[in-house]
């Protein structure tokens, strides 16, 4: 399934941490495309390499070998400043927690990437997006004054405002209750509908069911895919993975 115009493409990506006897292979020859407008969930047991996949795809970490392309730009071998500029232009992040600059209020956090790119934010668009994520009455609040769900919405608004081509989400609902998580995930899906490529790492089958596709990772390799997922199908697939890996979850060798 090769889509040459996919905003994010990984080809034979290997990532090895450490060296010699203590070397750990986090990614073992991963080749995958994330097409435009797609919403992909990446799943797998702890230590399967899903976070490493996200870091490499986003240019936060350099693979040991292989190639990563972001909107036609090769990321491997680029310097920190170049990578930053590419990320700033094309990528938005939503993390599990600590997404926002504590010193800045909602509006300032949402416009941060634009400001860093030394551009003037489109005020109407910003106001509309903040309204859209349901924070119209909290524009001047600082992150410390917001609930966890509200903080995640700010991060989503930030991704929307920056008009990023790709949004990487790392367990965006990991710290939220079920209802709040559902609201946040619905918003993430809106991102994809708006044409963004969304890649989300999660271990929650319900969260994964919001995606169009699910990738399953074990020991640094993509072992299966699931299209149009339901929570039940994802849970079943995960159960299969655990037995296949032959090791109980949590004891798999790995790093972060």
């Amino acid at each position: 399934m090769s889509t040459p115009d996919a905003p994010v493409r990984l080809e034979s990506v290997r990532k090895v941490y450490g060296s010699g006897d203590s070397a750990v292979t986090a990614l073992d020859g991963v080749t995958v495309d994330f097409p435009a407008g797609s919403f992909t969930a990446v799943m797998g047991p702890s230590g399967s390499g899903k976070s490493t996949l996200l870091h490499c795809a986003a240019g936060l970490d350099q693979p040991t070998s292989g190639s990563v392309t972001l909107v036609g730009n090769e990321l491997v071998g680029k310097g920190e400043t170049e990578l930053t500029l590419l990320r700033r232009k094309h990528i938005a992040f939503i993390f599990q927690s600590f997404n926002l600059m504590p010193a800045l209020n909602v509006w300032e956090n949402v416009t941060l990437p634009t400001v860093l790119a030394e551009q003037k934010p489109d005020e109407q668009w910003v106001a509309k997006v903040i309204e859209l994520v349901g924070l119209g009455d909290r524009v001047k609040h600082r992150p410390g004054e917001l609930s966890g769900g509200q903080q995640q919405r700010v991060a989503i608004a930030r991704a929307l405002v920056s008009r990023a081509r790709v949004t990487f989400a790392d367990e965006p609902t990991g710290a939220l209750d079920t209802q709040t998580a559902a609201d946040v995930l619905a918003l993430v899906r809106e991102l994809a509908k708006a044409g963004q490529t969304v890649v989300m790492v999660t271990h929650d089958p319900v969260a994964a069911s919001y995606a169009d596709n699910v990738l399953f990772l074990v020991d640094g390799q993509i072992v299966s895919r699931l299209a149009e997922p339901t929570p039940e199908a994802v849970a079943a697939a995960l159960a299969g993975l655990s037995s296949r890996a032959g090791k109980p979850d949590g004891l798999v060798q790995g790093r972060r």
Partner: protein
Amino acid sequence: MIKLALASLRYRTAAAIATFLAVMLGSAILIACGGLFESGLRLDSLPQRFAGAPVVLGGPEPEVGGYGERSGIGADVVGEVAAVDGVERAVADVSFPAVLVADPRPTDGGAYLAGHDWTSASLTPYTVRGDEPGAGEVVLDAVSAEHAGVKPGDRVEIVVAGEPESFVVSGVATARHQVDAPALFFAEDDVRRFSAHPDTVDAIGVFPAAGTSADDLAERLAARFGDLTVFTGDDRGTVEFAGIGTSFFPLILLSSIFGGMVMVVMGIVVAATIGLTVRQRERELALLRASGATPAQVRKMVLAETMVVAGLAVLCGLALGRFMGLWLFALITDRGVVPAKLEFQQGPVPFAAGIVLGLAAPYLAARLAARRAADTRPIQALVEAAIPPAEVGMVRRYLARVFAAATVGLAVTTPFLGAETAAATGGPAVLTGAIAVALLGPEIIDRLVGRAAGLIRRVGGTNGHLAVINTRTRAVQFAAVLMPITLGTAIALGNVYSQTTESAAREAGYAQQLQADAVVTSTFGAVTPGMLADVLGTPGVADASALVSSSGAIEQPEDTFHGEEGWPLLGVDAQERDPVIAMPVTAGSLADLDGNTVAVPRDAAEDLGFGVGDEISVRLGDGVLVDVRVVALLDSPWNYPSLVLPAGLLAPHTTAELPSQILVRAESGQDPAALVGTLRERVAGWPGTEVGGEDALLANFSSGLGMQAWINYLLAFLAIAYAAIATINTLAVSVLARRREFGVQRLNGATRRQVMRMLFLEGSVIATAGIALGAVVSLFTVIPMAIAVSHTVVPSGPVWVFLAVVLAAYLLVLPVTYIASRLAMKHTAAEAVSLPDA
């Protein structure tokens, strides 16, 4: 970026305040030092008694900076000056010691030169009520007359040139300018009688003819009389007030040493504070990077944040620097280090220098910290704040080695420099040593705590266990607290103990050269032949000698050993039966010490290649060069030896013109205490005379030393106070930053009290380490100093200083820990864990 920096600053006030205080105080102290430096360079002092004369001529300026005594002008020069084109009138001024017994106000510089000839009253000028003085008469200034409660026609007793004499007050003179010093005017014939050198005058006031400007005339006079010093405007006070000219050296020295010290302290403190605040925000900076900030943008933001704070701090430092300068200057003039009549000058230059240095230190520190911040990888936003390893980088390690090597180098050199110059290299060793420790701080903490882990655990139990883990893993943060404690302790112990060691050695050296069973001191600054005769005639007195102290230099043969520093000079009478000179005579005889003669330490004579009977040239304190014959070689103490000259030769070349002390030797079998009593009765007729035992000799000498010591203590105190504020800063910031961690700890079952006890233990560990390291660093100054001045490795000084420093360090660390931890734990544990980084 500036906007972001400002938002971030508003949010992180604690850290911003820390940097602010460090920079503000640092630049204020630098500006104050700059003021002292400028005052020393300009040496402005507004004339008072000479205020009426637009141009004032003083005696020749000695080549070697001056040894502090007033120099004279030949009396015949007055006529020559008057004959110069454009001079309307030239008035000679003669000053000599005179004290109104009813009003013994001391004048500046400790010299009692209140006596003047009546003609010089026109230099001020004065308006007189009554008549001008004839022989046996005196005109008093209005203030003196009021204090003494006398009016024209009354009789007053005046100790003039050491002898009490009775005069009739012919008039009372009111100065048309402010004149603080008492002035007693005598008739010309009387003046000739009192003056120690009637053929010279002390100054010449010049009134230009109409149409001639003072500056032009001054230039002409300077060209005509090349060997005299010519002053106009605010410089004229230099001639009027004793000690203005010699203020140059102490002021320049003081301000540069202190300024340098503060610059180093500020550099270290600011670097520690900024480094600490950057490290604590690692996650936030990573997030900023993940949000699309380039390394360059992060660097700029950290720089911008720091420079905004530093800019504000320097602005406030300007005002504070002015006050601090005035305050410091008032302190040192009150103490008589420099004359009060010297003007404090703090022009634009000290302020500009304060601004530049006050901004440069934080800029450099921020550049370093920003480089580290820019290296933050965005991925770190996704993980818990990484704990930086205790190992320091290559550059730091290399620099630390360089500074450690410099410290050892200075320490090794100091003992070879001789007692007088040892302080120059001894002092900086404290600073280089402290810098080396600061650079290696994290590693040192890791190792020290690792060594002491067993002990800390035994003392603190569970808390001790946690404290060991925390201090080792957070070694980088704790190093920021360790630095100022180490620095403060090192400066305190280094400065104070070098000073006490040096003072003790000087006193011992002085005491070794003289011996006396009783000491007669004139508080009016003059003992006369009459008084000496009275003392000699006292039963039980075996011998007595006047004593004069001054300084000078051997000029011929060229003295390469003592060149810059000069020699202490002692003036005594010829020594026969029971010498007051305690040093054994190895060749020649002190009985010949009369006229133009000198007794020289044997070692110096050997070094310079002369012996008994040879002629050498000695530059005396007033700049006059005299040829003297060597009559004796002395087995002087090796540290602080003096040249010994006849009192009669030396005294006229001192500002006071007369000796101020008489040393008395008792006859064998005579009880010294009883002799003191007898002498006291005997000299009771001489106003202002005190009699003391042997200790009075040292007491007088120490009060002179006390001045220099006092400056050292003051500087040490200020540097320590600065280091103390830095300690409070870094400690508070580092504790407050850990509030989330304390929240987690409390959620896991720790009580507030337990957390606090753990923090106290950590604080004690760091304080102890800081004191220990500071003490070790100070040894690199103190021990070489002890070797240099006394040839032993044991420094002398009171133990309480060390105890006070230890106590101060704990008294600083523990209460600050208490307050900061109270603040850090004001939230409930559950709230605390969700708080952002402070």
